[in-house]
């Protein structure tokens, strides 16, 4: 059986190029180095520490956190918003680019879709962690009010997670079939069984292609409004609360823009890491970095515009608690974080990408790292600085995250990295069939002489069936 219909190749695809693509795409599935296991062990250790910290929180209650009655959301909810934000990386971006028939992105859509599913899984844990009594989670459903944005959030995230998982799985089917056919008898039995089952008997017949194309088309259309709704609903958790700094009509649009912005940065960082580790330089080239960099630069402007519009409107009127809010952000206790976000998250990344001398893979990756870090800070500012504005004539509260919160945050990032690490070992990180059928080799991209480590692989033997 052959997973790929070799009659559908994109222009410029030679048998040798396709062979290299398939080999590179499937190589991570066939061997595991010691460094991989050391990395997994490190991540598990961090997660273990976070679990210990969470056990302290479960045992002693939320008193072990820095949250109190006035600033009642902190690192957990900021991280929830952050992770839900970067989840927009994959599905939304990949769907938009698929709808617009952009071909350059085909080699990175899989990574983007990984990020979506993993970020949603990790992000959805935070409200649960934030609950002092997680055993009452079901009450959110049983006694939930249809009028409450919290319930909308549950529906939106579960719907988006289901859709994203489907959307991740659909383009994986031909690649599962490819792995099934090419990994050969040397692959572990469980792995062969996994690929056989997940491939759904795919042989690339016209009937199967038609059904798959239709399924992907349906999903890419429906997933865009779902993704937009998710972060809009997340913003409404804040926007529909009677708090000075949350009183904004552009909050939904601003959150969606911020989500796409941080999502693009997450793709760029993951792309840079996997490209280097898995020797994918021939298939993930400067083109992908520069194009995503341009998108990121555009979003620095959109985010800057959003901030400017927000601050000018409220700053002009200086109504209610806004003088206090602006003071704490711009010159007060949050000023270092605030200006770090403005300068480090908007100005510097924009300049790095727009300047031709720094518009390189390393520069764009650096800009993406800056964006990711400062977007977390921005989420923190929305949550903590927003809640710090007094509602009545009392002294402003203070909030300092404790070791428990930092440990759980570290554990969440470790879980995110672990899931991506495991995904990269189980599934091809490049959508092999889409790149071969619809994109082909990039002009000027040369095969790199990446070191071939001895592997337990049957790839070199060609098709096994």
């Amino acid at each position, binding site marked *: *059986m*052959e997973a790929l*219909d070799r*009659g559908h190749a994109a222009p410029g695809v030679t048998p040798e190029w396709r062979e290299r693509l398939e080999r590179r795409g499937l190589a991570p599935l066939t061997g595991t180095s010691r460094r991989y296991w050391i990395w997994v062990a490190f991540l598990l250790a961090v997660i273990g520490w976070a679990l210990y910290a969470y056990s302290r929180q479960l045992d002693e209650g939320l008193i072990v956190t820095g949250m109190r009655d006035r600033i009642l959301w902190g690192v957990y909810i900021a991280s929830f918003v952050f992770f839900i934000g970067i989840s927009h990386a994959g599905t939304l971006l990949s769907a938009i680019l698929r709808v617009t028939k952009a071909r350059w992105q085909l080699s990175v859509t899989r990574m983007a879709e990984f990020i979506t599913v993993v970020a949603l899984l990790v992000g959805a844990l935070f409200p649960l962690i934030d609950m002092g009594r997680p055993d009452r989670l079901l009450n959110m*459903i*049983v*006694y*939930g*009010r*249809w*009028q409450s944005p919290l319930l*909308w959030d549950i*529906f939106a995230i579960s*719907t988006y997670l*289901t*859709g994203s998982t*489907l959307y991740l799985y*659909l383009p994986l*089917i031909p690649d599962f079939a490819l792995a099934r056919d090419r990994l050969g008898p040397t692959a572990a039995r469980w792995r062969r069984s996994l690929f056989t089952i997940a491939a*759904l*008997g*795919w*042989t*690339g*017949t*016209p*009937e*199967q292609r038609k*059904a*798959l194309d*239709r*399924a992907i088309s*349906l*999903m890419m259309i*429906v997933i865009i409004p*779902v993704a937009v*709704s998710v972060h809009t609903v997340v913003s409404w958790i804040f926007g529909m609360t009677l708090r000075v700094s949350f009183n904004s009509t552009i909050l939904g649009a601003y959150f969606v823009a911020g989500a796409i912005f941080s999502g693009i940065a997450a793709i760029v960082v993951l792309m840079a890491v996997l490209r280097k580790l898995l020797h994918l330089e021939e298939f993930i080239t400067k083109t992908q970095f520069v194009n995503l960099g341009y998108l990121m630069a555009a979003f620095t402007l959109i985010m800057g515009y959003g901030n400017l519009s927000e601050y000018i409107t409220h700053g002009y009127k200086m109504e209610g608690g806004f003088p206090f809010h602006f003071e704490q952000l711009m010159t007060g206790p949050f000023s270092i974080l605030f200006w770090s976000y403005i300068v480090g998250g908007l100005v510097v990344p924009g300049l790095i990408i727009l300047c031709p001398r720094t518009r390189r893979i390393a520069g764009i990756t650096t800009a993406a790292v800056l964006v990711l870090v400062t977007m977390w800070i921005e989420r923190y500012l929305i949550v903590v600085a927003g809640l710090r504005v007094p509602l009545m004539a009392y002294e402003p509260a203070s909030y300092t995250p404790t070791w428990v919160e930092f440990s759980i945050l570290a554990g969440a990032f470790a879980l995110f990295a672990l899931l991506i690490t495991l995904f990269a070992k189980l599934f091809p990180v490049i959508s092999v069939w889409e790149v071969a059928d619809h994109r082909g080799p990039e002009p000027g991209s040369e095969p790199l002489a990446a070191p071939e480590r001895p592997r337990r692989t049957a790839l070199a033997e060609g098709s096994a069936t």
Partner: protein
Amino acid sequence: MNRVIAATVIALAMLAGGAGIALAGSAPTRLTFSAPAQATLGERVTVQARLVDAQGEPISGATIAIVAPLRFLNGGGDVVLWEGRADKNGNAVGSFEARVVGPLALRAVFRGDQLYAPAEALAELKVVEGATPPLYRERVGVHLPGLNEPPGFGQVALIEPQDTVISRALALWPAMSGWPIAGALIVIWSVYASVVRLLFRIAAAPSGAPR
């Protein structure tokens, strides 16, 4: 040996005692309950219940509760409005503030104890809106029919005390409120279902060499 016999006797005595209590059972009781027919919102309402045994003798010291089935948004259940003990004449006089407008199905409840069986009595109270506005209104912001107007709009609605599996399942359904969300979810999940159906089609397609 003597110890064994003694232990056996004690155990039998205990069993017999327990059986005695069980055999004796709880004496039947009768509860009468009176409440004013009508009250104004915010008014303090005084109600009276009297608990007697089968012979009409008053039962003093019994705990009597005045409860009403109330609903707030999607939740509901019995709310205890007052609780107190019966005096030497078996009378329990309690009062509570009428906080909801509409007919209120009050129940005086004696939950029973080791000596006396439980008893309940009903009384209907109609609370009308007076000069004082309702103490709590849900209607804030923009009102979209069916979206943010829960049953019993502007007031706490009353429900019949039902606690069946079906009534609980129905309580999950948004009824009228929240229908736009429910509608959107139905559309999206229908598309997901179509995609899953296409997956089955892929799996069921005849395998063979690609054409």
